[in-house]
């Protein structure tokens, strides 16, 4: 939670929310007839009606009705970039906490180093933070991670913040435009994992600034566009954060 930040009172929170249709729906709510439309994520059809299954904002795009949930758990998909923490080390593999229902598994063969059997701990120990990619996810939620790939590595400095996974796209903006704006405003390196973990590295003021912006997203992200948060944040210079 932390402190409420000055100058961001609740009253100013209601703006934001881009897009045409802005209807908040709750689970079980009948949205309308299903004929001629496709049920997207968060929607099921029953007896020719579309029914919401999650709390969120209703969206209709290209004849598909879906819900942007207000809260959601991270569901890993192959190809996801994630910020993971080593939870367990075995002779030939690491178990990683990826903020999902299940731990991810990083086998020795997918590590960026040539690892001798039994020497896994020399490369990475419990608590270490890494940038990894989801290699595959099977039907039973078994997640295999890889660290072979450009930029995938152990993160030795910087800090990690959390944001709600459903706000990740909004933090990035179109073509990462907002993320880029944020990077420039605080002069930090920032990597946003699909699992809601954000790695920040820079000088002390920059990190403090970025952390505050992300805490605003966690607290007000459901009612306020990230661009609004960013604009308000940009008016506070780094040193004041």
């Amino acid at each position, binding site marked *: 939670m*932390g*402190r409420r930040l000055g100058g961001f009172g609740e009253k100013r929170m209601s703006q934001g929310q881009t897009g045409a249709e802005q209807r908040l729906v709750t689970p079980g709510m009948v949205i309308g007839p299903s004929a001629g439309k496709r049920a997207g994520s968060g929607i099921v059809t029953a007896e020719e009606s579309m029914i919401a299954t999650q709390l969120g904002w209703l969206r209709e795009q290209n004849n598909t009705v879906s819900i942007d949930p207000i809260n959601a758990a991270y569901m890993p998909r192959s190809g996801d970039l994630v910020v993971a923490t080593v939870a367990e080390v075995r002779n030939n593999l690491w178990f990683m906490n990826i903020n999902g229902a299940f731990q991810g598994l990083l086998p020795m063969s997918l590590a960026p180093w040539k690892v001798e059997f039994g020497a896994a701990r020399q490369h990475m120990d419990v*608590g270490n933070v890494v940038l990894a990619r989801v290699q595959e996810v099977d039907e039973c939620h078994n997640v295999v991670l890889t660290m072979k790939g450009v930029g995938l590595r152990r993160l030795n400095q910087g800090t990690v913040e959390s944001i709600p996974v459903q706000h990740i796209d909004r933090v990035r903006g179109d073509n990462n435009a907002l993320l880029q704006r944020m990077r420039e405003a605080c002069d930090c390196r920032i990597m946003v994992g699909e699992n809601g973990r954000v790695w920040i590295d820079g000088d002390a003021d920059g990190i403090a600034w970025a952390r*505050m912006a992300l805490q605003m997203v966690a607290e007000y992200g459901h009612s306020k566009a990230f661009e609004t948060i960013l604009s308000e944040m940009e008016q506070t210079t780094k040193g004041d954060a």
Partner: protein
Amino acid sequence: MVELVPTLLRQELARLAEDDARLDGRGRWEGREFTLETNCLYNAEGSAKVVMGGTVVYAGVKFELRTPWPDRPTQGSLMCGAELRPVAGRKYEPGPPSPQSIELGRVVDRGIRESGCIDMESLCIVPGEKVWGVMIDIHVLSDRGNIFDACGLAAIAALRTAIVPAERFDVGDDHKLQIKGTPIMASFTRVGGRFVLDASEQEELGGDERIHITLGDEGHLHSLQKGLRGVFTPAEFAEIFEVAQTRCVELRKIVAKEEEN
């Protein structure tokens, strides 16, 4: 469940400590915002709710009639217990009371008991036969750091508003429980190498040992506890003790203000 401590978190807390800064922008001796509400539960003879940052705690007071201990025939009794049930966070698991919740209950219990704020003699109804047993139960609903201070505050606030239900037990008229004094707890956690007041969940996760100080109205010590792995120096204690004095005076005022309303 043992929580995973990311190395980057400890590193970051150490770096912030060098600049005398904290994760959420607070000063080293600055507490989080909190609210106190009393008399909020039907069926409890005294109750209080404390919201401290993201930590949410309830305390409820119940009374029972019992026979006094043979060696103290004119004294009632006090019991204070805390429950850290799985509702309070992902890390809490179901099962019998954990050592952590027993420690929590006992530290709060000692602060209240040893301050002498309850006159045990006043709980006597018939010497050697019938006395009141006072029971404070603390229920932690959301742990986002420093549950000790929240629990200590809720317990004393609930106690100070308690009504002895004498009519229901057919032993006279209902009356306010006599309480002299307001013992208050102040807790410090070592974060990034130095102590801070009112640690947040992240600071506790990446921090080390904690020290709990309960002070009475005159600023006297009534309970001390050092928890978790780590050591501290007498000089460090002198420093936090001074902060505890100020903090306890502030919180005591808030308890008094809530009682007036």
